[in-house]
């Protein structure tokens, strides 16, 4: 069993892991960089170790210091969280070599899943459907045409260095291929100075659906349902939800079965995510596997009632899964909005700074995971995730309303600080999003319109209209908390209660 666990991470996920440890009775060792020395997780931990200067490569990515911290603080396990060292097979291997339990899959499996080509090959061998296409760059139009003929039209010619919808051409028929290939290469060379292109099957209206799996070291695995993360900008997820309501229950069950089968076939242990691209007909294609806890794991937690971080730690300690597939019953709908300290109007440029006001929403089935408290400073050295707002409701419509209410309650203020709050409110008002018919390209395509809507929301004052002033049935208390005795009880003339609004 694990008695003392070192959290090799920072921010909200460090706090999240520390909470799970507390509930399990495990002592917590936090590590922190110089700029995080007063962070929330440091305050919560039994012991905190300063591991380096703010730059991640010298602190949260610096393996020798983290391992040394674990050994000196007497930790017997290490949880890497997400990002940083979470998918670094070397780190997992070094931890094992030093006698530390690594909360995650075995290093060899992590290595395989970390290499996209290897992961795709292994999953294809396990019988998972793959999106036809090649991972290797295509050099000539002839080569590309041969690949396109093999995988079938429509195909997409993609610049390797491209992104955000630039440097991509959809080809619907063989006779258009050569021209599309030449122009995409020319654009790629001119815009990105790199003419490398790939050819892939083009899916119209594709959705990003990922399945949460949990496997123990005894060959058992369960699927905990799926999440839809189609709302992403240049492959950065902004809003995640579950379940994938556009799939039939049978399709969802099948996807879960495939995911567990794929994970077990490579000897996966712990919490992991299998990512699929799903086309309009519901056909799913395996994309990649994330061998770690994910940012959006609370969506699954709210849907299933399973504490994923707790289960992750128990599985790492060698326990068998305490529940079987039939025990997992996802209920209702959940949405997560990533609240980032970014300015969407300036190309999502990081907008960090001191959080002079941080008012967190509350209320029924409303959860906010963050590593910041009011008065903390969001450092420019790390990612801009301020926190994750997650809501649950019996159905998707109610969840959207609940999320909008929670977003409206939230206040984040500080010099130079901007957030994605208004953007999320605008997204949840978009007819395509409300009707659940958006696809993975939605944000890259419609961002200007969404930003315009967000701007108009920003102009309107949040919450209740304040213009006419609050209605008062009793006199306003005076500013002085200890009013003069002589005036107490008397009703001063002007502030007379009135029901008229004039």
């Amino acid at each position, binding site marked *: 069993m694990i008695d003392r666990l070192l959290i090799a991470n920072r921010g909200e996920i460090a706090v999240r892991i520390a909470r799970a440890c507390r509930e399990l009775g495990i002592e917590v060792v936090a590590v922190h960089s110089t700029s995080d020395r007063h962070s929330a997780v440091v305050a919560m931990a039994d012991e905190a170790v300063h591991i380096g200067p703010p730059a991640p490569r010298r602190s949260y990515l610096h393996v*020798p210091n983290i391992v040394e911290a674990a050994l000196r603080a007497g930790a017997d396990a290490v949880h890497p969280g997400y990002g940083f060292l979470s998918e670094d097979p*070397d780190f997992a291997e070094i931890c094992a070599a030093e006698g530390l339990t690594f909360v995650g899959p075995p290093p060899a499996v992590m290595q395989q899943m970390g290499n996209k080509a290897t992961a795709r090959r292994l999953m294809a061998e396990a019988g998972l459907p793959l999106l036809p296409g090649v991972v290797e760059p295509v*050099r*000539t139009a*002839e080569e590309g045409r041969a690949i396109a003929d093999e995988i079938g039209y429509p195909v997409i010619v993609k610049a390797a260095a491209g992104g955000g919808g630039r440097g991509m051409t959809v080809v619907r028929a063989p006779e258009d291929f050569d*021209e599309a290939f*030449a122009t995409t290469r*020319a654009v790629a*060379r*001119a815009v990105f100075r790199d003419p490398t292109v790939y050819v892939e099957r083009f899916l119209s209206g594709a959705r990003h659906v990922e399945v949460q799996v949990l496997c123990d070291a005894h060959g058992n695995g369960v699927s905990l349902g799926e999440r839809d993360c189609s709302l992403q900008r240049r492959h950065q997820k902004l809003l995640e939800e579950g379940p994938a309501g556009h799939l039939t229950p049978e399709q969802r069950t099948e996807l879960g079965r495939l995911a567990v089968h794929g994970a077990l076939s490579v000897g996966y242990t712990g919490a992991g995510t299998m990512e699929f691209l799903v086309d309009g007909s519901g056909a799913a294609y395996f994309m990649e596997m994330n061998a770690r806890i994910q940012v959006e794991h609370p969506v699954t937690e709210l849907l299933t009632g399973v504490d994923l971080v707790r289960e992750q730690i128990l599985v790492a300690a060698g326990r068998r899964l305490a529940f079987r597939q039939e025990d997992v019953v996802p209920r209702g709908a959940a949405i997560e909005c990533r609240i980032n300290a970014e300015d969407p109007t300036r190309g999502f440029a990081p907008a960090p700074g001191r959080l002079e006001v941080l008012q967190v929403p509350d209320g029924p089935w409303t959860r906010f995971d963050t590593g910041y408290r009011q008065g903390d400073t969001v450092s420019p050295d790390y990612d801009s995730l301020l926190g994750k707002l997650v809501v649950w409701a019996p159905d998707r419509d109610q969840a959207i309303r609940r999320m909008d209410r929670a977003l409206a309650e939230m206040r984040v203020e500080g010099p130079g600080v901007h957030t994605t709050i208004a953007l999320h409110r605008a997204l949840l008002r978009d007819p395509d999003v409300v009707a659940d018919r958006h696809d993975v390209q939605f944000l890259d395509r419609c961002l200007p319109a969404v930003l315009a809507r967000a701007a108009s929301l920003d102009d309107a004052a949040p919450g209740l209209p304040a213009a006419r002033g609050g209605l008062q049935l009793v006199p306003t208390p005076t500013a002085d908390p200890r009013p003069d005795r002589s005036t107490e009880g008397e009703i001063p003339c002007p502030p007379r209660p009135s029901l008229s609004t004039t």
Partner: protein
Amino acid sequence: MTRSATPVPPVPAPQPAGGWVSCPACGWLLYRKRLDRDLHVCPECDHHLRLSARARIDLLADAGSWTEAHFAPSTPDPLAFTDLRDYPDRLAEAERRSGESEAVVVGTARIGGAEVVLAVMDFGFLGGSMGVEVGRRVSGAAELALERSLPLVTVCASGGARMQEGVFSLLQMARVSCAFGRLREAGLLSVCVLTDPTYGGVSASFATLASVLVGERGAHVGFAGPRVVQETIRAELPRDFQTAEFLMSHGLVDRVESRAELRPLLVRLLALHGAGPVPGAPAGDGSADEGPSADRAEDADEDAEADDTDADPWDVVQRARVTERPTTLDYLHTAFDDFVELHGDRVFADDPAVVGGVAAIGGRRVVVLGHEKGHTVRERVARNFGMPHPEGYRKALRLLDHAESFGLPVVTLVDTPGAHPGPEAEERGQSHAIAEAILRSSRLRVPVVSVVTGEGGSGGALALCTSDRLLVMENAFLSVISPEGCAAILWRTAVAAPTAARAMRLGAAHLRSAGIATAVVPEPPGGAHTDPLAAAGLLRRALVRELDDVCRLDPATLLDTRARRLARISGDDGRPLQTVGS
């Protein structure tokens, strides 16, 4: 010499305990397995740690393609040398420590599918020093390349000549240089990768004699080591003294590459010199290029355009000078399929106002040269506004030589206000350099196609447009002096520049009708800068057409036609010069 594929012996290397290595440059702790995957480059300070010969071969050659050449064993100790230990003892220990039988390993391999002879030095064997055996193996590698008509790739790492073999070591410099000379005469490509460290008798022989010299990032390369220099002349040396970057800024190597970029570069270089498929070669009837019928239609268009678009010369001058107008590098990235820039004049400096290298266009390999102006103020200052110094023309000269050695046609893109006027340019022989460039291109045994893409300012432009075919873009001009200069001299005020431009009949139309330009390349309406990609497409089409045409001629016909073309240009319809009878 016999060859066989033998299993590579494991390389014993000193390792600190725990699988961790400390970076020799910054002291950062590096996990050995990670360092292996990172090609032994420190992620913290980008220091390129030294590599054994075997690791180099694994890095550069296609997997499983290496076949080592075995040399009959020899135990040379011509001087029966003894210092603190006997020389044979030292050799035995070097062999045991490095796993190699000498300081260089030779064999054949494929790099990106192209068969090459590969000679790789191992600094771990007596500091990579060159004695008789190293000389024998390196010249053997060159002979093997000659015998099999293969490119030769060498990777150098050496402290210099081997002291223990005395003057016999010294003479190996002549032996290997002679072998590389024969390679050059045969028109075979040789590429040398200069790694840390390359000094003395190796750097002053084959290491710097290859057709293309590539320095690995941060590698120290020089003749006399910094300590020797410092102790001899007692001078303060710059921080980057003798690094690959220092060499490149002094025009002494073609490129500097990080370790990870070495193999991709070699693959491209080999392909661009005829070992491997031509990059971007059209499949079958051509993808990016229109068929001949389209070209003919274009021809007709052009002639029509050249006849009826007598643009105002001053408009032409202004359009040619627009800062957004595509430059040589822009065209190299848009109108060509691949381009590897080769820097430096191999003597003194790398002039950023002239760019050049090997490129591919429409399935043809070419050498491209051109003026480069840049776009932003910073770029334009760095590029000296496209005004070359003598070293720019000397870079052009040595690339013209390069083209001739490998039988590659030359494309030049001309866009300069003129050669740089300044005392340092005069000191280094501006006139000589321009004259040599004109002469060399007038007698080059491979075709030369020139395009005036913008300003063609005087002799500075002509140095790059002495050619078999001279194309002019619609908004480009060639001029003996800038309109401002002409106005200042003849009208006594630079304000009269528009009048001067008209008087000198600047513009494509005049060049075409005067028979100086052989064709006009159309531009998108409003000028090339309004749609750079379309302009590049039009230029590409014109170049492919002209190259197809001119590459049909054999060298003798080519030289003859070129001489006659140059002689015909006179302005009075080619009246031959006659001796006036007395």
